[in-house]
C-alpha cells in the first residue's frame, strides 16, 4: 500500500514551502518533495529565492553598498576612513551563512509543523499519484488527495553565449566569483542584470550591460526608468540598449560580439553573466499519461485559483502565468492551501508590488503612466522629489522621487512608483492603500511621521491635487 498524504507539494521554494506551511496549519497531512542540492551537494529547502536568488543577491547588494559607501560616501559625513579594503571571501561567506541560517529555519518550521520533507525528484502520475525519486535509492509511488506543483523556474540560456560554469555564468554563478572581475559583461539589463551589475561595479569591476531591447526597463514607469538609467550610468554601469549578442569567443579573454543599429561590435571581458530572463522548470514534472496541460512556453495551465486541468492538482509560483516574484508565488500557495481546507482564498493580482534593489531602489505597484496612456484611462499625477525631503537629505540620499497616479474622476489610486532610498519598504504603504481602494486624498489626509522618507509619499499624494506643501505645485 502506497504512503498517502492529504497534500503533496512538489518544490520547496517560496510558493511550495509556504503552501506546505499553510496546509499544515490548516490540519492537512503534508509532504514536500524538493530536489535542490546546495554547493556541498546537500538538500536545502527554500528554492531559488533563498538559495540562489532573492536572499543571497540582497546580501551581496547590501555588503557591496557598505564597501562602496565606506570608500566613497563617508567623507561627506565628515568621517575620514583610510585604506578601505575588500575581503571578498568574507563577503561571500557572510552571504552563504545567511542562506544556511534561513534554509535551516525552514527545516525547523517544517519539523514544527510536522511536514514530511522528501529530498529528491517528484513526478506527477495519473490520479494524484506522485513518484518520489530520492537522490539515492529506489523510487516510491505516493498517493495524495491533492497535489500542489511548485516547480519554479530556471535561467534562460542563450545559444550565442553557452554557459561554461566558470567564465560564462548565470545569475547563480554571478554570486560566486572568487575575485572581482576586472571587466564584467552582462547580457540583459533587467532586474537580475542590474542587481548583479551593481554588486560587481561597487566592488571595482568595469561593467558593460548589453540589452537587446531598445527601451530601458520597459515595464517600469518610463519617467522613473529614465531617471534610474541616468543614476546607474553615473555610477559606472555602461548600459548599451538595442544590443543583440551574436557570439562569444573563448580565448585569453572573452570576446563578446554584438550588433546594434550602428552595426557589429565586440568587447573583451573577463567574466560574462547571462541574465536574459527565466523560464518555467516543468520538464520531467509530469508523465505524459498524467495529462497535465502545459503551454508552449512551458507554463502549467491554471485558472485564477491556480487549478490545473486535472482535478485535485494545483500549480503555483514561477511555473504558472503572472509575475515571477517570490511573494506572488507565496500568496498563491496560501490561496491554494486555504481553498483545500474549504476556506475562501484569493490573490489580488492587480496589487502585487515589484522591487529592483539597485541604488537607488525602484519599487512600484499598479499601473504605469505609459500603460494608462495606452488604455485612455483619465488620470492625474502627483510627484515629490527626495531632494526636498528632510530625512532623505539627512541620510545623504537626496536622489529619486515618489509618483502617485490617481483616477481623474474618482481619485482612486491607480499606481504608485518610487525611485529612491528604501523604495522597497516605502511601497508597502501604497500596496495597502490600493488593497483598500484608497484615493489619493486618503493618503494625503493620513498623518505621516516627520522627519521620515514616507513623507515623500504623503507629499506626492498631496501633489495629485496640487496642494503639496513642500514644493511649488
Amino acid at each position, binding site marked *: 500500500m502506497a504512503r498517502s498524504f492529504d497534500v503533496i507539494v512538489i518544490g520547496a521554494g517560496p510558493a511550495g514551502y509556504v503552501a506546505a506551511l499553510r496546509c499544515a496549519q490548516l490540519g492537512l497531512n503534508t509532504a514536500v518533495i524538493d530536489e535542490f542540492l546546495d554547493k556541498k551537494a546537500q538538500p536545502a529547502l527554500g528554492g531559488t529565492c533563498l538559495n540562489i536568488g532573492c536572499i543571497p543577491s540582497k546580501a551581496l547588494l547590501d555588503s557591496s553598498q557598505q564597501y562602496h559607501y565606506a570608500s566613497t560616501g563617508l567623507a561627506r559625513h565628515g568621517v575620514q576612513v583610510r585604506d578601505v579594503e575588500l575581503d571578498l571571501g568574507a563577503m561571500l561567506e557572510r552571504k552563504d551563512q545567511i542562506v544556511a541560517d534561513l534554509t535551516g529555519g525552514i527545516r525547523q518550521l517544517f519539523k514544527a509543523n510536522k511536514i514530511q520533507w522528501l529530498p529528491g525528484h517528484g513526478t506527477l502520475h495519473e490520479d494524484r499519484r506522485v513518484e518520489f525519486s530520492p537522490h539515492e535509492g529506489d523510487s516510491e509511488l505516493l498517493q495524495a488527495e491533492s497535489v500542489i506543483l511548485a516547480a519554479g523556474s530556471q535561467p534562460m540560456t542563450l545559444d550565442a553565449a553557452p554557459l561554461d560554469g566558470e567564465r560564462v555564468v548565470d545569475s547563480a554563478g554571478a554570486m560566486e566569483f572568487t575575485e572581482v572581475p576586472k571587466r564584467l559583461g552582462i547580457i540583459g539589463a533587467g532586474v537580475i542584470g542590474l542587481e548583479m551589475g551593481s554588486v560587481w561595479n561597487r566592488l571595482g569591476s568595469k561593467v558593460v550591460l548589453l540589452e537587446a531591447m531598445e527601451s530601458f526597463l520597459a515595464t517600469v514607469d518610463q519617467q522613473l526608468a529614465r531617471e534610474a538609467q541616468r543614476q546607474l550610468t553615473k555610477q559606472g554601469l555602461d548600459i548599451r540598449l538595442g544590443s543583440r549578442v551574436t557570439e562569444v569567443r573563448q580565448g585569453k579573454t572573452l570576446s563578446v560580439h554584438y550588433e546594434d543599429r550602428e552595426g557589429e561590435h565586440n568587447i573583451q571581458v573577463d567574466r560574462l553573466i547571462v541574465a536574459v530572463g527565466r523560464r518555467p522548470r516543468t520538464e520531467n514534472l509530469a508523465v505524459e499519461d498524467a495529462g497535465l496541460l502545459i503551454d508552449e512556453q512551458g507554463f502549467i495551465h491554471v485558472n485564477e485559483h491556480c487549478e490545473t486541468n486535472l482535478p485535485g492538482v494545483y500549480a503555483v509560483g514561477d511555473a504558472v502565468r503572472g509575475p515571477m516574484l517570490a511573494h506572488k508565488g507565496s500568496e498563491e500557495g496560501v490561496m491554494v492551501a486555504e481553498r483545500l481546507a474549504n476556506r475562501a482564498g484569493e490573490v489580488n493580482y492587480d496589487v502585487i508590488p515589484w522591487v529592483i534593489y539597485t541604488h537607488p531602489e525602484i519599487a512600484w505597484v499598479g499601473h504605469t503612466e505609459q500603460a494608462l496612456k495606452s488604455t485612455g484611462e483619465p488620470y492625474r499625477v502627483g510627484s515629490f522629489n527626495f531632494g526636498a525631503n528632510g530625512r532623505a537629505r539627512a541620510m545623504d540620499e537626496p536622489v529619486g522621487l515618489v509618483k502617485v497616479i490617481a483616477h481623474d474622476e474618482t481619485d482612486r489610486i491607480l499606481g504608485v512608483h518610487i525611485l529612491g532610498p528604501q523604495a522597497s519598504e516605502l511601497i508597502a504603504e501604497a500596496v495597502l492603500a490600493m488593497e483598500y*481602494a*484608497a484615493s489619493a486624498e*486618503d493618503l494625503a489626509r493620513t498623518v505621516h511621521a516627520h522627519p521620515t522618507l514616507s513623507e515623500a509619499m504623503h507629499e506626492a499624494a498631496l501633489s495629485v491635487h496640487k496642494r503639496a506643501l513642500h514644493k511649488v505645485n
Partner: protein
Amino acid sequence: RNDNLSPAVRRMVAEHELDPARIEGTGRDGRIIKEDVIRHLASHEQPA
C-alpha cells in the same frame, strides 16, 4: 463620527452633511470609498 470611514470619505461626509448609512460602500467588507461618495452625490439631490 464613523471611524470606519477613510480620511477622504470622512471629509466628504462632513462637508456635504451626508449620512454614511445611506451610502452604498463598494470597498473591502462594504467600506465606503471616495468614489462611492462621488457616485452618491451625483445620483442624489443636493440638500439646499
